[in-house]
């Protein structure tokens, strides 16, 4: 055992995701674990983010409500939560830094929708902060 030792809950879960441009891109709402093809213990393959992943963490009625919201936001029958492959994780510190811009992430859908349908229509939405 020579690699870095982390506790999933303490060091990873609920931390801020920061994209390649320094923009905030969601939270580590859950982790996906898979058994490697060659056998052996499971490894972390992806970060799950967004309401579809968070709903299971919350549980109860609030979780069910969040799940329903998440399902409405997805296209068709796709019931998977938004997934960020662990391959694009650059660094784990007080935030989790990613090596890609958030426009490339599945987690970006709700934000893009809010911009395209609501906030983007207000005058001055695209102006840089003076």
């Amino acid at each position: 055992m020579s690699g870095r030792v982390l506790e999933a809950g303490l060091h990873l879960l609920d931390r801020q995701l920061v994209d390649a441009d320094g923009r905030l891109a969601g939270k580590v709402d859950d982790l996906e674990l898979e058994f490697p093809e060659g056998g052996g213990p499971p490894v972390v393959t992806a970060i799950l983010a967004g309401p579809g992943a968070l709903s299971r963490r919350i549980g109860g009625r609030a979780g069910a409500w969040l799940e329903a919201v998440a399902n409405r936001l997805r296209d068709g029958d796709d019931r998977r939560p938004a997934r960020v492959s662990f391959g694009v994780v650059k660094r784990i510190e007080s935030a989790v830094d990613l090596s890609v811009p958030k426009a490339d992430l599945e987690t970006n859908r709700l934000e893009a929708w809010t911009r395209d349908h609501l906030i983007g229509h207000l005058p001055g939405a695209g102006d840089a902060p003076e």
Partner: protein
Amino acid sequence: MRLSDLLGADVVDQAGRRAGHVHDVRLVQDGPLVGAFGASLRLDGLLVGRRGIGARLGYNRRKMHGPLLVKLAVGWLFHDGRYVDWDRVRSVEEDRILISGSVDDLGQPSPSS
């Protein structure tokens, strides 16, 4: 499998005796390579004990600076931690994890980093 399937689950041995809830999962970065991250995070074992927010506060790490009051309170509430090596896990069911052997021979976890 998701991390949330493990967190909070009841850990039970072959005789049906309970060791407590999973309050955290220890990962070691020495798994197969995954993209730019390098070696992936391998699931090493389960931190088991009484459930609660105590574990999330990070007071099982010696380097936590204080305050003494919170340290003592958390230590008193969550003193019964045990460690389950992943090798001992037989099956992961809903809200329940079956382990081999007996809960009596589970050791204390090494301090976290």
